[in-house]
Every structure is written in structure tokens, then in C-alpha cells.
């Protein structure tokens, strides 16, 4: 037998490989998530409520846009640290992680990469502190996996642009002060439209953000639409140089990386709860854990979690070293969320009737991960991204 102990939630000891900075940031995120977020997650899910004070709490701790330059309110944390924060927040709830991911990767990141100096100074520090909230508009009612066919459009006018169209399934939209919106822009009527990014602010005439009702998933975060009816967006609120789908895809790539980590946290929660549950619950005079089926289920969960941890950790290192490729992110997002969803479903099963009760929090993870498996590139679309890399042939557009 080994002289070392077997770590029950980090079997290959990846946490011991983290830098001191990254580990300390992880500890802060864990402490915050467990003491401040977990106590609110049951109510948030059951009553479909996002507690907006979380934005400022996360901002005060520096959890929003942590990788951004300190000049604009970030702390210049590593990509690994950003991923570790996502893991800790999603250990509590994918909805809270969605809020954090959107603010960090889909709003602060594009402003910091594509924005003018004035836009950076105007928005980033307040987004970092949580004083204002952002959202990201790409998906439309009729255009999900195929955003290139979007119909939201912008027409040049004096001093700005006139925006028309609608976006759907937008995390944070009803509570957002600023929306990063991607639309097909035309300088003149005859121009070929090109996708550009706009910073649409709450209160601009013609801009509304209705709440999406009857969600059965991600109920602890706020989701809505973005509707533009002849919204005038001044030139000062347009990203100057970025053109085409590259812009939104760079943002999504950053967010998807965080999701690959977040899924680890959700899966770890489900596994740890299931382990405790089968040890505590006795049937036929013995703990459930004394049976072969629960044992192999736990073994499968831990094996999958270990591979998920290895992928996320290695991908973080590759990003920190500047050696990442978008297909690496697709591989990790697809694998980790797919496995997390399977683990959550098995955990639901292992909890028996209690698995459907919000009290045990397993069912929240199950229904949340159904969304996470779909958003930011569905499981199958990431398969096609990988397939294109592997074969050199794109299969997004059917050839039938």
C-alpha cells in the first residue's frame, strides 16, 4: 500500500501544482462562495431571483474581470486564477458563475481588447467594482449556433448609428447598465454589412430589456432579451476596429474557458454530496455505500472529475503561456460540461427522492447544467469545431 493518502476530491493533486497567487485567489473565491453565495442559492433557485448585491460583493473582492490590467480596476490575475474563481462560484451555482463570466469575459474582456482608451476608462473600473452590470448580445431568436446569419443591424447616421433588431437568451440583460451588442453594420445603404460591436446603454431611447419568464434552469441568475427599435448609439460607443465574427468569438472563447473550469466545480459538488449521502443513508441495515452500484458510480464520477480537472488546469497553463488554440477550449468546454451534466444526473439518481428537492441542491445543478451544455456553443457544435480541425472539412453547413 501507498504511504501517501489518496485525496478524495483532488486525486492527482493538481491544487498542489498551483502557484501561491493562484491558490490564494482560489481560497478567497472558495471562502466567499461558500459563506456568502451558498446560503442564498436555495432561495435564488426556488424563487427565481438574482440578488443584485452580489455584484458589489464580488467587485469588492476583485472577482470581476480579475485578469484585467490594474489600471482599469482589475488585478492582472492569471488565466488559471480566473478559471479557479469560476470553479468555486459554479460549485455553488451555474447561475452565479454565469453572472461572473458574462461580466468578466463577455463585457470587460471585449472592452479591454477592442475598446478605445476612453471606453476603457468610462466602463471598466465601474464594471470591476460591480457598480454597473454588463451583458452580451449575440444570440437572436432565430440565430443561435449560426450567429453569422444575425439580423440585428446598424445603419450609419450623423454622429452615430441606428440599431434595430432583437437578441435573446441574454444573461444579465434585465439588470444590465451596458450591453455589448453585435450587429451587422452598414456605413451606407449600398455597403455589404459587416459585424461590429456596440456599447448600448440602459436608458437609450428605443432600447428595452424584457425579462425571460418561465425558465426552469439558471433560475438564480437573470435572463432576458434585448430589443432595439431605432436606437441611436453614438460613435463614442462603437468598437473602432474589430470587424466580423472574430470579435464575438474571441469573447466566447474566453468565457468558454471559464465554463470548462466552472463545470469542474458543479461536478465536484454533486460527487461530494453523493458520497456523503450514500455513506449516511442506510437501507436494508447497511449504508448505501456498502453496495457495489453506488461504489462504481462514485468511482466513475471521480474518474471523470479527475480528467476534467486535468484538462482545465492544463488549458489554464497553456493560456497563461500564450500557447492556446480555440479548439483546445472547445475540447475542454464540451468534455467538461458534458461530463458534469452526466455526473449531476447520476447524483440525482443516487439521492433518490431527495434528489429532486431543492434542499439538497443537486436538482439545481442538473437543470443548470442542461443550459450550460447548450450555451456558449452547444455540445454538438463544439464537436463540429473539433471535427473541422481533425478532418479539415467544415460540417456546420449541411451538404445534403
Amino acid at each position, binding site marked *: 500500500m501507498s504511504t501517501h493518502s*489518496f485525496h478524495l476530491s*483532488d486525486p492527482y493533486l493538481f491544487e498542489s501544482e498551483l502557484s*501561491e497567487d493562484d491558490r*490564494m*485567489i482560489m481560497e*478567497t473565491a472558495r471562502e466567499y462562495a461558500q459563506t456568502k453565495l451558498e446560503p442564498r442559492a436555495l432561495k435564488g433557485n426556488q424563487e427565481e431571483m438574482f440578488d443584485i448585491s452580489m455584484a458589489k460583493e464580488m467587485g469588492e473582492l*476583485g472577482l470581476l474581470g480579475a485578469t484585467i490590467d490594474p489600471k482599469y480596476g482589475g488585478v492582472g*490575475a492569471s488565466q488559471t486564477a480566473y478559471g479557479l474563481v469560476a470553479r468555486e462560484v459554479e460549485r455553488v451555482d451555474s447561475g452565479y458563475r454565469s453572472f461572473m463570466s458574462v461580466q468578466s469575459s463577455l463585457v470587460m474582456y471585449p472592452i479591454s481588447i477592442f475598446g478605445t482608451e476612453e471606453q476603457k476608462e468610462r466602463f471598466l473600473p465601474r464594471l470591476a467594482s460591480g457598480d454597473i452590470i454588463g451583458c452580451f448580445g449575440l444570440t437572436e431568436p432565430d440565430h443561435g449556433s449560426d450567429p453569422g446569419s444575425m439580423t440585428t443591424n446598424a445603419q450609419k447616421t450623423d454622429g452615430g448609428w441606428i440599431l434595430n433588431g432583437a437578441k435573446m437568451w441574454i444573461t444579465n440583460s434585465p439588470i444590465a447598465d451596458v450591453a455589448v451588442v453585435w450587429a451587422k453594420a452598414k456605413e451606407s445603404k449600398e455597403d455589404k454589412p459587416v459585424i461590429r460591436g456596440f456599447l448600448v446603454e440602459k436608458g437609450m431611447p428605443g432600447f428595452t430589456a424584457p425579462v425571460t419568464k418561465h425558465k426552469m434552469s439558471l433560475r438564480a441568475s437573470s435572463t432576458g432579451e434585448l430589443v432595439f427599435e431605432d436606437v441611436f448609439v453614438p460613435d463614442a460607443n462603437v468598437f473602432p476596429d474589430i470587424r466580423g465574427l472574430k470579435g464575438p468569438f474571441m469573447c466566447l472563447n474566453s468565457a468558454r474557458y471559464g465554463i470548462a473550469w466552472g463545470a469542474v466545480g458543479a461536478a465536484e459538488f454533486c460527487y461530494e454530496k453523493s458520497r456523503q449521502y450514500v455513506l449516511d443513508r442506510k437501507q436494508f441495515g447497511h449504508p448505501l455505500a456498502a453496495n457495489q452500484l453506488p461504489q462504481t458510480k462514485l468511482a466513475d464520477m471521480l474518474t471523470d472529475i479527475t480528467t476534467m480537472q486535468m484538462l482545465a488546469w492544463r488549458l489554464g497553463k497553456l493560456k497563461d503561456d500564450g500557447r492556446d488554440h480555440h479548439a483546445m477550449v472547445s475540447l475542454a468546454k464540451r468534455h467538461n460540461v458534458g461530463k458534469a451534466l452526466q455526473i449531476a444526473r447520476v447524483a440525482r439518481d443516487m439521492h433518490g427522492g431527495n434528489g429532486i428537492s431543492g434542499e439538497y441542491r443537486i436538482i439545481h445543478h442538473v437543470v443548470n447544467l442542461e443550459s450550460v451544455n447548450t450555451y456558449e456553443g452547444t455540445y454538438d457544435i463544439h464537436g463540429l469545431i473539433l471535427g473541422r480541425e481533425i478532418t479539415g472539412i467544415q460540417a456546420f453547413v449541411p451538404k445534403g
Partner: protein
Amino acid sequence: MIHFYVCLKQVPDVYAPLQIKDGELIQDSGRMVLNAYDASALEEALVLTEKHGGKVTAVLAGPEKAKETLRKGLAMGADEGVHIVTEEGSAYDSLYYAGLLAAFFRDKEYHFISCGKQSQDTDAGLTGSMLAQLLELPYATNAVGLTLEDNRLLVKRQGDHGQEMIELPSPGLVTCSNDMNEPRIPSLKGIMQSKKKPVETIQASSLTGDGIRSVTTLLGYEEKPKREPGQKFEGDPEELAITIAGLLDSKENLM
């Protein structure tokens, strides 16, 4: 300018799963954390110096790997750190640490030393008092509230019969309960800045003085003995009362 020294200890995460195998304690997670009582002591020192001005120095005696816990203290807001580096894997007792800290403090100037009232791993609750004795300092234990008035510390302490107010002159020592505050979570900014704060490293072997010795020996760890199952009595209340009174008299000798 008030100067606090706060003593910190790194302890195993007591909420993580633990096992005992062949008399050895095995931590499944291997996670080490800042002792929660020390975190409260640090929080209170930070609150007082933020309000009245002053300086907080965090002192940690522990092995090399414990420096991460000292850094947490700096990330929370301590101005500077001292790491007294002890040998890895040694089972020192409270007197050893008190002796070590006393040797360190002997030639230092300060207003107050603040410690957690005990540590979460052994729950001995001895080091603070022993340190005060070795340094011949006035001290108060189990503080649940601290107020600063003209360089005197008003200590609200939880005594056996209720809360007591003690006025502690400077220099003095206080040990803190975790009931007095909710220690702040270090912000990411604090974590990044903590790298730049000064940390003095002292080898434990370079400190000399009375009391730097362990007087107890750790023989091994054992599981807590299993509790005997209780007895259940059913029936007529009057008869039950007579039966139970009889048992309390004959078995427990309480009557």
C-alpha cells in the same frame, strides 16, 4: 501610533475529511488554513488600527510551507510579517511555541500582542497565556470585543459567569474569541499587494531563551471511543418516573 503584533498559526482544515490510520492522523485533503481564532485577532487589530491609526505586524511560527498562511495575514491587511521558521513535521507543544515567541518578542517594542484564544487543531488554548507569563505582561483571555482608549485596551471578555470588562495597560497581551467579528476575506487586490509587503524570516534555531522546549510528547492518535447506546424506557409515566429515579439513585448515585 499603536503597534499590534498578531500571532498566527497554520492549522489543518478541520472541516476537511480526516482519517486515523495506525495511530497517524491523515488529512484527506491536505489543506492547511489560517487558524480561525487568529483570523479574528487579526481582524480586530486591523479594525482598531484603521480607526485610530497604527501598524499591524503578523508573526507566524511554523514550517517553511506555512508562509502561505502568513501571506494570507498580509493579504487581509497586516502591514508586515515575521516568519519564525520551525522544522518540518515536528510535533511541538504550546510551551515550545510560547518560548519561541517570547524569545522573539524579548527585545521588541509594541503596544499589544494579540493571539487567537486557542487553535483549531489541538484546541489547547495555552500559548497566549504562556507567552504573557514568559514576557511578564498583563493579559486577558477569551476577548469578545476590543476598544482602544488612550493606548489602553478595553477588553470585553467572556467569563464563566458572564461578560467582564478589563482594562489592559500597554504593553499587554490579549487572546481573542472568534465570536467578536467576522474576519474579512482577502481581496484579490490584497493578495497581489501582499507580495510586496516586507517579511522578516528568522530561523527558530537562532532564537534562544527559557521555555523553548516541548514538555509533552505526542504518542499517537486514536478515534474517539464509541458512545454506549442509551436505554429506552416505555410505559406508564408514573411507573417510568419511579424506575428512572431508582436508576439515578442506584446506578448513577445522583439522588
